[in-house]
């Protein structure tokens, strides 16, 4: 994304922030605070900062007419009590306070790293602020839960309260200390991929004899989907009287197995793509890292077409989806002729790979005749 219209010092800091922030951070609502007729550039924007498996929105307000000053940051309406410069401390927070002060008082608009430092620092403080708020909630069960998982690294928490909503406490618990990136050969991921458990407790009830289960949801960084889909994971049931400290190790053990299996399936898909080549020829292009897709060029008489193979993370339990695309027919609107996604054809995960390949070949030999007819019906071949 380019930021034309920003004075260079703002643009440099914003670029640095976007490129170096450990998670995906987004920018929106870029405007100019100054009087446009003076040709003052853009100097304010909204940052969407990932926090607790959601985003917090902070407005960053520079002033293009006073470039030497650090930007102001405006927090969301729910966080009126968040004052990073004035946080009274639990131990260690005295250090945080002075760090923020230093960043602001020592502001150097020529240093592109400053905005990142400021935002990261503020986010750390926000995390402490939320932690403190959650700790103050008058709910015995919640207090107990927090005490059992507090020692886990990387947990983020958030308490939401609104006029219409009941109070809820949300935990984002990173799971598994695995470096998944390292397990994938040729891994293209820029950020470490992680899986989280989102746990949401309602607040305000006194400790019941059988506390109800919290709402649980698995979430992952987006790019992980190429390897492993959390939608395929069945969460272990939360038994009556359970607490997070008991539930988490159980879940993690199961997830670890599933991730390891997902990694081993990459090479299963790779071997299958390779096994297709004696019959289908060398693919035009195949995904070399996750082996989720491959496209081949085939012919039926003088009709030449592409064959797309799409492999789910459940292959070979789930058969590949196939699609044919003509290399010769295009509608007047410029839309190429494609077959529907073909997912029903003879298949068994227990077949030998060479048999899988032959059966698909036979199926497509028939299907390509139908497809050729379909293409020629609407438009004669050149």
């Amino acid at each position, binding site marked *: 994304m380019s930021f034309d219209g920003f004075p260079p010092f703002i643009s440099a800091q914003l670029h640095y922030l976007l490129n170096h922030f450990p998670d995906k951070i987004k920018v929106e609502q870029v405007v100019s605070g100054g009087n446009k007729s003076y040709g003052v550039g853009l100097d304010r924007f909204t940052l969407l900062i990932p926090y607790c498996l959601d985003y917090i929105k902070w407005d960053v307000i520079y002033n293009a007419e006073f470039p030497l000053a650090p930007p102001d940051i405006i927090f969301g309406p729910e966080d009126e009590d968040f004052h990073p410069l004035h946080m009274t401390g639990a131990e260690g927070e005295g250090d945080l306070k002075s760090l923020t002060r230093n960043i602001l008082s020592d502001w150097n608009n020529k240093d592109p790293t400053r905005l990142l430092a400021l935002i990261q620092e503020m986010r750390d403080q926000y995390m402490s602020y939320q932690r403190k708020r959650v700790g103050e909630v008058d709910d015995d069960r919640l207090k107990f839960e927090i005490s059992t998982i507090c020692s886990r690294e990387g947990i983020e928490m958030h308490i939401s309260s609104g006029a219409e909503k009941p109070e809820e406490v949300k935990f984002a618990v990173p799971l598994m200390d695995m470096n998944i990136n390292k397990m994938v050969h040729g891994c293209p991921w820029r950020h470490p991929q992680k899986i989280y458990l989102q746990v949401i407790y309602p607040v305000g009830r006194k400790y019941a004899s059988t506390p109800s289960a919290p709402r649980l949801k698995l979430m992952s960084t987006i790019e992980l989907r190429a390897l492993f889909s959390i939608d395929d994971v069945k969460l272990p049931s939360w038994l009556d009287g359970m607490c997070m400290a008991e539930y988490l190790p159980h879940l993690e053990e199961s997830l670890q197995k599933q991730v390891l299996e997902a990694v081993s399936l990459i090479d299963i898909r*790779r071997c299958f793509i390779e096994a297709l080549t004696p019959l289908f020829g060398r*693919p035009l*292009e195949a995904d070399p890292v996750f082996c989720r897709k491959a496209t081949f060029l085939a012919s039926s008489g003088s009709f030449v077409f592409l064959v797309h193979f799409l492999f789910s993370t459940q292959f070979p339990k789930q058969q590949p989806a196939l699609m044919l695309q003509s*290399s010769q027919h295009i509608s007047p609107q410029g839309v190429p002729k494609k077959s529907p996604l073909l997912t029903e054809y003879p298949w068994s995960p227990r077949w030998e790979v060479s048999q899988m390949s032959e*059966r698909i070949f036979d199926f497509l030999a*028939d299907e390509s005749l139908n497809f050729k007819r379909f293409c020629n019906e609407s438009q004669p071949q050149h």
Partner: protein
Amino acid sequence: MSYLTKEGQRGEMKMEGIEGDASEEGAGRYTLKPTRINNEDIMFCVDVEAESLVEMKTVGVTRLDSIKQAILLFVNSKLSINPDHRFAFATLSKSASWLRKEFSSDVESTIAAVRALSAITGSSGQADLTNLFRLAAHEAKKSSAQNRILRVILIYCRSSVRPHHQWPVNQKLFTLDVMYLHDKPGPDNCPQAVYDALVDALEQVSEYEGYIHESGHGLPRTLFRFMSMLLSHPQQRCPQDDCDIPKPLMKKPAESTNGEDNVHVSTSQ
């Protein structure tokens, strides 16, 4: 008739070839190595001199008409393989110049660029590829900075004008593919010599294995077929001599188990 002027199939221009490229199995078994490949920036360079207006075998359809169609088909196919590939457009008369310089994966903008392709009147009698290579090398640096690779697909239509170029020997910054449409060879033209010059250029400048195809008999579907073969990703190609695609999808007659020959078994399930 075929003319062998170089070792290997590449030097032989097949005057009648329609269906075939080398039908031998690709040398060695295909392996899909776990190494990342880059998204492509593909620069089409279309010959727009008079010979691009020569009619194909289909009445009323010029070479340029078919080329435009072929480009649209190519771009659509390439994007369905991977929506992150991008395209830009240039034209070639005496030298190359930009038609649409910004690389884009948007089909609409490809349609617009293709519409804007039109032939110029007259022929300069020259085809200097040097500027094309300069433009490509410049773009290749930008592509590389974005973790992409650059490819030039040159579509050339002249039967008597040998292209020439001046290019440093070891500068291989982009891949070059060529599609050559020409008249049947005769006493007044030299498509073989032109073809050889194109092969020379390709072998000199191309970073990854470049492919060259030619056709002299004016069938649009032959052009589309060859362009489809150019869809293959440069970082996953085999040497052109070993190309074995497209494979025909035809069922073999079943092995006779009952002593009956030519029993055609259809998969009914």
